[in-house]
């Protein structure tokens, strides 16, 4: 096929596979040579293995104090969407797999003797035995139900505090809140009706059956969509990563295609009760370092207007990288600088075309007392298996969920092929 000049100017030649920068070496004592560090590129001292492969489209994960891994699948595999993986012989590879629950979803966590898991509209919990195994997989209690489940941003992420509350993200079923979603120059509805039931964080009791909006606390508003979230035990607060808006260049009078690629930042929010973080009226510009008015509401890239009143993020990352996992590290295995710092799994962008896509890696940002204490850096790369991702479907793996093992290792899930990576450190 003859490539057109215009097409050729943005279609880049995709390079071959990169493993870890070093040539592949065959290990004599292993029958099947696994790629070095399971194909990941890590900092010196760190190593990775594929703890499990082909698990299914694995969203969030949780590792029990016994070292077993619970994985939540986006859609059931063989009728099961909660998978339990055990490594019985201690060789860092799962050798026993079981599963239950027929609902796909994202959220999974354990707290005070219960396993919690979400579909895209409900949250369930299951009583655990002392080995952190579900006692009766048929006896899930539905604790939350009837949450907005639109076509966009419908996954529900969950985390618990230490006071018997569970927090749920309810993503907005839209990009902004336009009269016509994603249409050129379409104005924003004011006030935005979507904010009544979505675009925020809701708080529920961890132990009450069938709660819905009327029983829940509308904990924070103006947050477009969240997938990665965690409870920071150092400062006892909820932290979430927002997926920022797309397509500012729907307003070509004020934004070029390139500005639309680099704006707005993906932000980390320390969520305060009653906080409002601005969506859809505002977005965070990482270059001006402030929250500015969105073009749907009269913004031109500079005007601040009502956004002066909005609560501010604690950290900003490049646009559209899609933070899907957040974990504050409390283990003792990794070097001291990692303690209480944030790991963020960036699923990888799609909204940067025609430029190359970004993300598809796990980053680390040091923290002290709930505040960033240094710049972020890429901690684990190479998930995509290609040097440059120009279109999302080129990525062979995309990092999604994060979990900490009892020994302090870091687990990362992939929702393309269902690999679960275990990252360790040797002093």
């Amino acid at each position, binding site marked *: 096929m003859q490539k057109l000049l*215009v*097409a050729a100017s943005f279609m880049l030649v995709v390079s071959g596979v990169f493993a870890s920068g070093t040539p592949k070496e065959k290990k004599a004592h292993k029958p099947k040579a696994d790629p070095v560090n399971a194909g990941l590129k890590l900092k010196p001292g760190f190593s990775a293995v594929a703890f499990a492969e082909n698990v299914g489209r694995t969203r969030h994960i949780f590792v029990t104090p016994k070292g077993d891994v619970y994985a939540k699948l986006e859609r059931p595999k063989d009728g099961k969407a909660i998978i339990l993986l055990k490594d019985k012989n201690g060789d860092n590879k799962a050798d026993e797999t079981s599963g239950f629950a027929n609902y796909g979803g994202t959220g999974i966590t354990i707290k005070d003797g219960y396993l919690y898991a979400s579909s895209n509209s409900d949250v369930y919990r299951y009583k655990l035995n002392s080995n952190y195994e579900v006692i009766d997989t048929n006896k899930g209690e539905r604790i939350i139900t009837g949450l907005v489940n639109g*076509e*966009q941003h419908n996954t529900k992420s969950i985390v618990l505090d230490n006071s018997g509350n569970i927090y749920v993200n309810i993503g907005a079923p839209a990009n902004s809140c336009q009269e016509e979603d994603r*249409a050129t120059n*379409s104005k924003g509805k004011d006030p935005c009706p979507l904010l009544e039931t979505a675009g925020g964080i809701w708080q529920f009791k961890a132990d009450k059956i069938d709660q819905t909006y009327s029983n829940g606390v509308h904990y924070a508003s103006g947050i477009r969509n969240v997938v990665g979230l965690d409870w920071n035990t150092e400062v006892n607060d909820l932290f979430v990563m927002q997926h920022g808006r797309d397509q500012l260049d729907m307003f070509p009078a004020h934004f070029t295609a390139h500005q639309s690629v*680099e704006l707005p930042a993906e932000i980390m929010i320390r969520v305060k009760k009653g906080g409002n973080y601005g969506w859809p009226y505002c977005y965070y510009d990482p270059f001006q370092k402030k929250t500015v008015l969105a073009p749907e509401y009269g913004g031109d890239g500079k005007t601040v207007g009502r956004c002066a009143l909005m609560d501010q993020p604690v950290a900003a990352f490049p646009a559209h990288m899609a933070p899907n996992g957040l974990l504050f590290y409390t283990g003792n295995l990794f070097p001291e600088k990692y303690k209480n710092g944030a790991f963020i799994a960036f699923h990888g962008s799609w*909204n940067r075309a025609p*430029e190359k896509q970004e993300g598809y890696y796990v980053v680390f940002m040091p923290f002290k007392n709930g505040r960033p204490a240094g710049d972020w850096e890429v901690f684990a790369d190479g998930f995509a298996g290609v040097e440059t991702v120009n279109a999302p479907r*080129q990525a062979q793996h995309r990092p999604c969920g994060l979990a900490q093992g009892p020994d302090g290792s870091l687990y990362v899930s992939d929702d393309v092929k269902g690999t679960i990576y275990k990252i360790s450190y040797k002093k």
Partner: protein
Amino acid sequence: MKKFSAIVLFSGIFVFAIAQVKKPSQTKKPAAVKIKTSATKPATSKARGAVVYKTFCIKCHQVDGGGVQHLNPPLAEASAVVAKDKSKIIKVVLNGMTSKEEIDGEVYGNNMAPHNFLNDQQVADVLTFIRSSFGNKASAVTAAEVKKLRPAKKK
């Protein structure tokens, strides 16, 4: 910050086609869109369509026409895109698509807005481009075919 500047440098290589939409006045939607390219106007419909694609469609449907899982359908080897009956895809571009119907066995969550600000020739060009790119090998679309399906102007 290093990341950002790397991106700026990188994108500097590209020649951007910039959509110039008239300043929004009372009329919400601009009547026509001028697409400016720094090169001379490409001669063939497919070449012009590539410019339209890069300006308005690439963000969602991607450089390889592969779409985005769960969000935006692929146009590469999509049965509606290469179908003999071109009316569906002409209508999708003119009227947008939010039906969330199954497309080749998958459902896509995003909304596609109407692109009725493109003129008949621009719609024909971009559809000609997608029907003959990304491995697709289907016939061209003409401006006359688009004109027939464009809804009458509401006043």
